[in-house]
């Protein structure tokens, strides 16, 4: 299948461009060719932006020739998850209900990437409206894991994870509501980072669960993640939940030294039951690498962890049921052809337009908000959410970084869990708490278990992205898991 050449990392591409060994047009062409060659097998993309990307690349080359390069991202191909809008381009959210939709405006993240010269080459596949943990719930097709095409890449940002793991693009954006960046990063053997809630603007990110959604990055290593994140982060007046805090130059904080850090291992995340022993071993090895690099390790406790998944599903589905009410076939998207009256327009358009998982979540969310159930479910979940945050605040009094497995197991087979939504949801057990608490998290490849990648998750206090990136960078300087190329492509 190796008909095209793998793309270098983000800094690798930058070096080629800086040295004059490559041009942006050349590199973007390679990315497009590689997508062409591999994507039939992978299904990582919902659409390429070939023409626009080549124009942007030519402009980047012209800037470089004139000595006016905009940033380290100038001329670098980047893919975006197909739930971030860009003027003049379709946005599908992998849903039939957005059939034919072309956005008349641009998301802040895309605006920022483009203002720094990055070239958007395509849109990546996802679980419909980012609801899922496998990228199987796409109206187009499931995405395959490049380590084993019969397995799911994880999700919902599976397309972005696969595009980076398969070396089609050096970097991609994803969104993470309950682990949707970190989990597929773990399953595909790449770095995936979810920043602090509010760090990256959500303007133009199609909402799943507004209080949990956060845009983040996929790259091969922490150094690249730092460059990409510093390009997209920062205050945006168009998003009321955007933080005003200044954004550090993350790429300049990678000192290689973590001797000042205390790593906390939450007792509840290292129970032997429920975790694949291979994954647990790889994660423990990873922690010992950090310890050898000078970090102190101690045990901490996050007692409400076992309630996090239930809390998450109540809050996320409640918000989603309301966020998805706008898909009614009036102003855009699909309207059922057979609808002859108003009521049919609603019922048929939405029933035909939404897939199974989305309907399941809308139903659950509608239920938990409905009169008589609100207090027992939604309000209760919000209270437990406060306790989850409380756990983290106490833990971060005792440590700087919390280390956990990203997922309890490696990539599962396509179709394996679609019949059992609850077991799929439980795969998010280690990732959802960070969304509930709004804290940053990163997943770093930490070895293989049964021939498939495992991920080490590092969590930090609010706004501690720099610390996480520094620790992940040190880890990657001392290990080579992230250089392993997927075996199935």
């Amino acid at each position, binding site marked *: 299948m190796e008909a095209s050449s793998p793309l270098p990392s983000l800094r690798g591409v930058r070096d080629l461009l800086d040295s004059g060994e490559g041009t942006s047009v050349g590199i973007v062409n390679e990315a497009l060719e590689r997508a062409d060659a591999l994507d039939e097998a992978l299904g990582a993309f919902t659409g390429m932006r070939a023409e626009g990307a080549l124009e942007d690349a030519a402009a980047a080359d012209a800037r470089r020739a004139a000595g006016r390069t905009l940033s380290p991202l100038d001329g670098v191909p980047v893919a975006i998850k197909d739930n971030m809008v860009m003027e003049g381009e379709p946005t599908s959210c992998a849903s039939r209900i957005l059939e034919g*939709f*072309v956005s*008349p405006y641009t998301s802040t993240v895309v605006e920022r990437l483009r203002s720094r010269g990055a070239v958007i080459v395509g849109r990546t596949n996802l679980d419909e409206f980012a609801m899922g943990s496998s990228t199987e719930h796409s109206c187009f097709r499931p995405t395959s894991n490049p380590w084993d095409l019969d397995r799911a890449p994880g999700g919902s940002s599976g397309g972005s994870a696969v595009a980076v793991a398969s070396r089609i693009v050096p970097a991609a954006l994803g969104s993470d509501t309950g682990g949707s960046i970190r989990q597929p990063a773990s399953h595909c053997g790449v770095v995936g980072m979810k920043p602090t*809630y*509010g760090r990256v603007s959500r303007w133009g990110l199609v909402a799943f669960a507004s*209080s949990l959604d956060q845009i983040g990055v996929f790259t091969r290593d922490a150094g690249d993640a730092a460059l990409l994140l510093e390009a997209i982060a920062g205050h945006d007046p168009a998003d*009321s*939940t955007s*933080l005003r805090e200044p954004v550090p130059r993350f790429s300049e904080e990678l000192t290689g030294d973590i001797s000042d850090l205390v790593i906390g291992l939450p007792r509840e995340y290292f129970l032997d039951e429920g975790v694949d022993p291979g994954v647990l071993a790889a994660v423990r090895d990873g922690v010992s690498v950090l310890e050898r690099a000078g970090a102190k390790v101690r045990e901490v406790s996050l007692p*409400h962890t*076992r*309630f996090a*998944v*239930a*809390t998450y*599903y*109540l809050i996320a589905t409640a918000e989603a*049921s309301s966020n998805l*009410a706008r898909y*009614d*076939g*009036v*102003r*855009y*998207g*699909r*309207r059922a052809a057979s*609808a*002859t*009256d*108003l009521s049919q*327009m*609603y*019922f*048929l358009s*939405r*029933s035909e337009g939404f897939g199974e998982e989305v*309907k*399941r979540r*809308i*139903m*659950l969310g*509608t*239920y938990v908000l*409905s009169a008589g159930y609100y207090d027992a*479910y939604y*309000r*209760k*979940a*919000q*209270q*437990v*959410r*406060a*306790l989850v945050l409380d756990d983290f605040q106490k833990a971060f009094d005792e440590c700087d970084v919390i280390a956990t497995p990203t997922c309890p197991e490696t990539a599962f087979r396509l179709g394996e869990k679609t019949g059992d*939504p*609850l077991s799929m*949801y439980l795969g998010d057990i280690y990732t959802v708490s960070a969304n*509930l*608490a709004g804290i940053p998290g990163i997943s770093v490849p930490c070895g293989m278990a049964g021939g498939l990648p495992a991920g080490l998750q590092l969590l930090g206090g609010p706004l501690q992205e720099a610390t996480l990136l520094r620790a992940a960078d040190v880890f990657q300087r001392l290990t080579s898991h992230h250089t392993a190329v997927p075996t199935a492509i």
Partner: protein
Amino acid sequence: MAVLARLSLTDAEVERLSTELEAILDYVETLEEVDTTDVRPMSHVLPLATPLREDRAAAPLDPQAAVVNAPESAGSAFVVPRVIDGEEEG
């Protein structure tokens, strides 16, 4: 519930969904174990107040761009099947 959510489900879907939702709701019942007396519900993790925007009008969207994605439009208006008198409004 399906009516509130404006979803029409087939009998098979209803059956499957209710089993699944029941399982999920059973699982969610575990939250009852958590003592939340005096815990203030947290709708947001941000320790902020909502920011205020200056009252300045931006240029409106081009009216054609506003309706270009619409399944049906007439001039610059969206068109929906006739709303029958008495059909409920908020």
